[in-house]
């Protein structure tokens, strides 16, 4: 089955979404990430969505849920690289990604998670 790869860097997990996800794939990623947080004792999750030209309410909900599950498992989530057009559309759609930390790029996201990026 098709899957989005999750990379481990120290105690961080990094996901770069580069395909237009159908709903099942988005749910799979949510499950995989939650599992990996526990398995790898991760303290932070970086989700890079800079390649996504669309975030609809389903993908938005997946991101919010993942962040909430990570929080319960003692890990913090930062969503990085959202395209401006996507941000405008999300807000007008009514989705505010409540409780999700965001950063402009991976480097700033790492800083937010308390890591130096060299």
């Amino acid at each position: 089955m098709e899957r989005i790869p999750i990379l481990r860097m120290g105690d961080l997990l990094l996901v770069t979404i580069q395909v237009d996800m159908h709903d099942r794939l988005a749910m799979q990623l949510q499950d995989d990430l939650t599992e990996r947080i526990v398995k790898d004792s991760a303290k932070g999750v970086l989700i890079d969505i800079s390649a996504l030209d669309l975030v609809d309410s389903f993908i938005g909900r997946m991101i919010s849920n993942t962040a909430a599950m990570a929080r319960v498992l003692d890990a913090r989530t930062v969503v990085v690289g959202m395209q401006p057009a996507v941000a405008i559309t999300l807000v007008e759609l009514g989705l505010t990604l409540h409780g999700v930390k965001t950063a402009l790029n991976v480097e700033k996201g790492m800083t937010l998670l308390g890591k130096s990026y060299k």
Partner: protein
Amino acid sequence: MTGAQTEAVLFDTPLLDYRAQQRTGRVTLPLRSDDDVVGLRKQVRERAVAIALSLVDQTKLVTAASELGRNTIKYGGGGEVYLDALDDGMRRGIGLLFVDAGQGIPDIDNALRDGFTTGGGLGLGLGGSKRLVDEFDIDSRPKEGTAVLIVKWKR
């Protein structure tokens, strides 16, 4: 023709005749699975690029299409979407008409309100989509089906 049909008849809505003189190149796509929603997003994006919609308007239209396509599958039990190229003499646009033969929406005003959902979602699909486009129309009858029309014009 009753009795001769093997497939469910799609909802016969007046919306099917919208802007009959102004549209060309109608393409019909099935909406049965979430892969179909991905295919729809791709087609809508291509058409939006073809008439040179701004990036923000492209994104809004594709996002609205994604929400409504998912609704057709999830709440309407599947259906079809019609993609139309529009030209009203002054400007070009894209029209999308989603049609299903599902149970219909009992209370449209409620369904358009943010946060209202019967399917465990966020309840942003209908009302949110309406905000993302220039024109929005809906026709729904109990046990016959639902049709939702959205139009985005090039500015």
